[in-house]
């Protein structure tokens, strides 16, 4: 049968960031996908050896716009482990709250893009309308909508007082009821289900072999969530790991929607339990040593390796972002899919190409 090659990307309305795929088609069915990356490679890992480690924090935050908060937080966490300092408890709870707000905004963004991918623009707009309220909360507390610049080595730079925290929690009730109706459309609507059910199947064994992380992995039945390691204040908070056995795009949608509601609960718990105290300790001197930090970003498990040798610059800073891991599984679920499902499949891994190609 004759094969056609269709170039997909790097600019495509459904892609949040540029990635290029050469799709080899046999009459509307994808046979092979040849990727081409490198459109947003900025050499951020190399930059670590050229910038003062305090200032490099602001560069790390800007590796990606959507996952920005957790990049900054992981960098601070790694530096704190190298210095061997323990940040105040209040700072840990504040970081947890901002982490979960970041997860909320990222999942709502993903829901919108998913709806856009199968053409349901109104659903896309409604998801983002709810997301705006989260972004307003983040701006009220930190000063920036996406890039918050609120982490410091030794704690956080801004405090959220009781009034602000209670105000946020009060807004959650209304948002939750709106989201319940919205997510019912994602999960129960016939047309949406027809697009998502049994599309892009990744079995459990394949998920481990191909290195899937995060909701990709949890939707295939693997019960692993890096938040259970107990960094920040997650050790004190009760939450379940949300998994699904569907292994398809609908299952991934379920997992992410479940995580949205779980985030609301986690923030409620953190706001109830947050202790008083200071928010930052001062850390002086140059770091020396190495640290490996693992964090659960909205897209999956991210691993940070930092090595310092006693000078103002870090010797090595390695970020293994979740999308880097998920890209391979993407290349494996594309063959066999319909051409019209390709944007959808690319989105089910929640691609963050800026993170991949720092």
């Amino acid at each position, binding site marked *: 049968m004759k094969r056609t090659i269709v170039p997909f990307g790097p600019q495509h309305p459904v892609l949040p960031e540029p990635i290029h795929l050469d799709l080899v088609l046999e009459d509307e069915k994808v046979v092979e996908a040849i990727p081409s990356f490198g459109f947003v490679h900025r050499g951020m890992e190399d930059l670590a050896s050229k910038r003062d480690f305090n200032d490099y924090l602001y560069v790390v935050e800007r590796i990606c716009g959507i996952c920005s908060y957790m990049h900054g937080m992981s960098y601070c966490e790694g530096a704190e482990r190298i210095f061997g300092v323990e940040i105040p408890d209040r700072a840990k709870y504040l970081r947890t709250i901002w982490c979960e707000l970041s997860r909320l905004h990222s999942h709502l963004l993903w829901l919108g893009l998913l709806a856009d991918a199968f053409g349901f623009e*109104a*659903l896309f707009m409604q998801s983002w309308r709810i997301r705006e309220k989260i972004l307003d909360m983040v701006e009220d507390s*930190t000063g*920036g909508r996406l890039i918050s610049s609120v982490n410091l080595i030794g704690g956080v730079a801004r405090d959220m007082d009781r009034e602000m925290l209670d105000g946020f929690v009060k807004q959650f009730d209304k948002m939750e009821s709106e989201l319940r109706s919205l997510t019912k459309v994602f999960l129960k609507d*016939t*047309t949406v289900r027809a697009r998502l059910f049994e599309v892009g199947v990744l079995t459990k064994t394949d998920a481990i072999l191909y290195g899937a992380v995060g909701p990709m992995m949890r939707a295939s039945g693997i019960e692993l969530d890096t938040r259970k390691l107990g960094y920040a204040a997650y050790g004190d908070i009760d939450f379940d790991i949300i998994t699904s056995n569907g292994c398809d795009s609908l299952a991934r949608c379920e997992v992410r929607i479940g995580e949205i509601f779980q985030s609301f609960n986690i923030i409620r718990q953190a706001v109830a339990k947050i202790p008083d105290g200071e928010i930052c300790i001062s850390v002086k001197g140059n770091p020396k040593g190495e640290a490996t930090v693992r964090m659960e970003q909205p897209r999956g498990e991210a691993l940070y390796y930092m090595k310092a040798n006693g000078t103002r610059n870090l010797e090595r800073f390695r970020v293994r972002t979740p999308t880097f891991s998920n890209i391979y599984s993407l290349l494996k679920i594309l063959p066999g899919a319909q051409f019209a499902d390709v944007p959808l499949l690319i989105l089910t891994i929640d691609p963050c190409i800026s993170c991949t190609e720092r």
Partner: protein
Amino acid sequence: MAGIFKFTKFALRNLFTKPATRAYPSVPARQTPRTRGAVQVNIDDCIFCGLCNRRCPADAISVDRAAKSWSIKRMSCVQCGNCVLNCPKKCLTMEGAYSAPACEKRSELFRKKESPIPAVHTLAPAPTDGKAIAPDRVLVIDMTSCVLCGLCARRCPTGALSVDRKAGIWTVDRAACLQCGNCVNGCPKKSLALVPENGHPQVETYTRSAAPATSEKTETPITAQPKGEIGITVDLSTCILCGLCVRRCPTSAIAVDRKAGTWSINRQSCVVCGNCLDVCHKHSLSKTTEGIDTSGIQVYAKTVELKAEATSAAPAAKSEPVVEATPVETAPQLPAPAPSSEASATDAPVGNGIAIDMDTCVLCGLCVKKCPTSAITVDRAAKSWSIDREGCVLCGSCITACPKKSLSEAEIPLLKTYTK
């Protein structure tokens, strides 16, 4: 079938609610008290330490200490707030809005206004139009730090002050006082102040306190200096004997003899106010406690004599290091400088002198005003700039004053007149 109308509720509600979007930029963007935007600087508080420059991850800020300027590349700034966090004087703030978009990359420069340099050749007070800067205040003095130098009396536009060194008295006529603050600004010991009125008499006389008080601010004792105390000394290797210090000395303690190559100071008159230090362009003067003989006049002499040749004023000798304060000696004659190949038609000798670039000169005449010996003349009509090489003392005031940087000191054929 039942699953088709799940979205209907949203669609219907959307019909009857107002839009969730904001028509930015017609409507201003949402701002919160913590919103981060463009970085602004309060240049008056800035000390130009350069910390913000070093902390900026995008290298957007540059600080020039000498020029007292702070500039930011608006398009490079990522609004991270690191500079604001690290500024030791807290003079940086973040506005609530980003800087406006533009078609080209631009920088914004902020420069600290210099405080006006007092005129070098006269001690005339700064013009105040006779208006008071602090009309409800009165002038008082702290006699513990006053050295009775008399600068305040000279600067007073109405002659309201009088100082008697011998008697140790300082008098103010508050009726004549305009509260202009000229004396307060000019006092080298910061003894004067304008304070709120509180039953002060119209004419008041202050006497210097009997016990010698030492103020923490200066290292100079007020009473007559015993031997071995602090005094002014000169480094004759850099001194060009221009005489500016003579003019600035409020007690006329310094004398300079160009022909003889000597610089002398009357230690009895010298109050170590430091005015001569401030004005010396060559930074030859300094305060020291070594070798100070306060009994009378101390003379410092250059061991190599300044040559005053027929048509040039070429003190080429000052490059040789001379540091001891010895009596005047006659020095060997300097060889005449070789005429350069670019000798002009007038066949002027080559030597060290003020050079002018007539292409950039705008004949503004500022150099004329600044020249302490009135050696320069500018004729705008004839488009010419002339210098009296004998009168020129190479103090460099004209070089500093020239707004077009047309003047410099160099080894040149020493012409007297230049035309455009």
